[in-house]
């Protein structure tokens, strides 16, 4: 008895789930229509200037909806639809230029327009494919219910003629069996517009190859720097330390004054070796980052600077280790620029997570006039962010204040804050 109940439940639950998912597809498709209209209006507003800001905003909202469709296709039907979008350039720029570039990045991407077309096409597609499972199962179940009532003698006569009965009852198993297949059809239809074209795939592979070489280059240069720092720094100091102690050992009787000088130098050498090792370790992976994560490490960094730094961090989770490290070092480089060049008396750091992007803002009340194209620290930031499809925006009017906004794509682990 229990077994029968369980096997019915095992049949009913997934069927119900499929029907509900189909309905959700249809409902969301209709609910997205205003977004479609809004996007069209924003694009039409482009010549008026306002569209430069609004069009990317609404088209990115369309993009997020498309991404949701991709996720559903994968989770519900096991259909993988790759993300087709072009990466953003991490080249530093001022804010106005960046707004134009962002507009070009969104509007210039054919995938954006395919998303938009899908928003419209999906209404009839999901109207049929999404609602059909629910309709078949619902109609079949309704007839079955009627028949049971009739057989039990609650209702006087058979509700329909025999042929209609068979047809209606047949809908139930048809709906149960065809439901998942219909959802897969929908996913396949979505894939035809939401997946990257062959050409886009090829272009992306090219970009990834390039950025991989950049990353490999950067890490090789980093290792070389570490080796140099150790060789000329701590290692050399330890050699000098040994030499001084050995020399002092020989001199202690004949020339105690020299021995004392040598020992004092040896002590200084050991202190310098340690502080060089510490600096090196900090440059590889700051201990505070290992111990406290990005939040704690940025706060620790802010405290160590010679000017007051306000820190505002709101992260609902922790990014992965490479992202934490990249974010930390970009913030550190931006703050180092503040200390070196701005002449500021105050600085601030703001770190937030918004729609899959980690946004870090470093500002100061200094002299301004920072040139994002002059290179220096900003190039280091760009290199680090490139691997994460990140961006850097600089606003620095003469007279200040200067603000550097860095964004990078990542996901947060929800576990702990």
């Amino acid at each position, binding site marked *: 008895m229990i077994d029968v109940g369980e096997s019915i439940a095992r049949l009913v639950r997934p069927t119900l789930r499929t029907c509900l998912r189909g309905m959700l597809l249809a409902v969301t498709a209709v609910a997205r229509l205003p977004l479609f209209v809004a996007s069209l209006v924003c694009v039409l507003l482009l010549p008026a200037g306002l569209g430069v800001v609004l069009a990317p905003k609404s088209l990115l909202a369309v993009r997020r909806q498309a991404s949701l469709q991709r996720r559903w296709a994968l989770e519900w039907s096991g259909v993988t639809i790759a993300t087709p979008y072009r990466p953003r350039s991490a080249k530093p720029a001022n804010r106005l230029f960046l707004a134009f570039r962002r507009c070009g990045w969104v509007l210039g991407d054919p995938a954006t327009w395919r998303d938009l077309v899908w928003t419209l096409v999906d209404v009839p597609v999901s109207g049929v494919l999404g609602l059909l499972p629910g309709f078949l199962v619902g109609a079949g179940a309704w007839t079955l219910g009627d028949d049971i009532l009739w057989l039990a003698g609650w209702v006087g006569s058979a509700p329909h003629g025999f042929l209609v009965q068979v047809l209606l009852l047949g809908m139930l198993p048809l709906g149960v069996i065809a439901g998942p297949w219909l959802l897969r059809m929908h996913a396949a239809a979505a894939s035809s517009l939401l997946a990257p074209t062959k050409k886009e795939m090829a272009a992306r592979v090219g970009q990834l190859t390039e950025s991989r070489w950049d990353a490999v280059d950067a890490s090789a240069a980093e290792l070389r720097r570490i080796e140099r720092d150790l060789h000329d720094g701590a290692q050399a100091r330890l050699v000098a330390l040994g030499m001084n102690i050995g020399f002092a050992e*020989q001199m202690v009787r004949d020339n105690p004054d020299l021995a004392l000088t040598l020992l004092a130098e040896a002590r200084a050498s050991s202190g310098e070796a340690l502080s060089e090792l510490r600096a090196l370790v900090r440059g590889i992976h700051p201990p505070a980052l290992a111990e406290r994560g990005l939040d704690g490490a940025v706060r620790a960094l802010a405290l160590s600077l010679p000017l007051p730094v306000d820190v505002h961090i709101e992260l609902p989770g922790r990014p992965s280790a490479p992202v934490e490290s990249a974010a930390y070092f970009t913030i550190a480089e931006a703050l180092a620029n503040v200390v070196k060049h701005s002449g500021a008396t105050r600085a601030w750091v703001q770190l937030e997570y918004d729609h899959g992007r980690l946004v870090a803002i470093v500002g100061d009340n200094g002299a301004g006039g920072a040139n994002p194209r002059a290179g220096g620290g900003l190039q280091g930031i760009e290199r680090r962010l490139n691997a994460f499809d990140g961006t850097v925006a600089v606003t620095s009017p003469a007279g200040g204040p200067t603000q550097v906004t860095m964004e990078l794509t990542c996901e947060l682990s929800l576990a702990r804050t």
Partner: protein
Amino acid sequence: MRVVLGEDLTLLRDGLIRLFTAYGMEVVAAVDSGPELLRALVHHRPDVAVVDVRLPPTFTDEGLRAAIQARTQLPALPVLVLSQHVEQLYAKELLSVGTGGLGYLLKDRVSDVLRFIEAVRTVAGGGTAMDPEVVSQLLARHERDEQLGRLTSREREVLGLMAEGHSNAGIASRLVVTEKAVSKHIGNIFTKLDLYPAEDANRRVLAVLTYLNA
């Protein structure tokens, strides 16, 4: 004794100058780059050159190459190479040019001041001073060598010390045996390795190193 020093790190350069001066050597030139080193060596023709492997401008093995080049011009020039790590490959390259004294030591060895000064004097006198690290690398490479396998453990010890460049007397005092016992061991080593027995201590060292380097 006149010394030319090639070392780019001020800290070590100044320390070495002070050390050499304290032990009665005269540092006639202390330079901090490969090209300058070569010029100084050819110009001063010192009694010994003390050279850091890594020097500007390339920060690669600039010092080593300058030393090798100087020895091709002045084969009798004694050279003591210092480095923070030892490579058998470098030892081999150094041994392949020139006839003058040759040393290749880890920089760590300067902390044993007396032995370091002794090594400098040995090299200046035409002798050899190989770092124990180099020698143990050389011996490790011959782990499966049949001929070397015939040596007793004592003979291996003697071979190691000989390769480092110690004299018979030095080996005897280190192993706390008589010089006569050492000569006997050395004789056995040469027989077992099929080496031509040489009376001159330095020629013997070179014979051993050449054998190990082959």
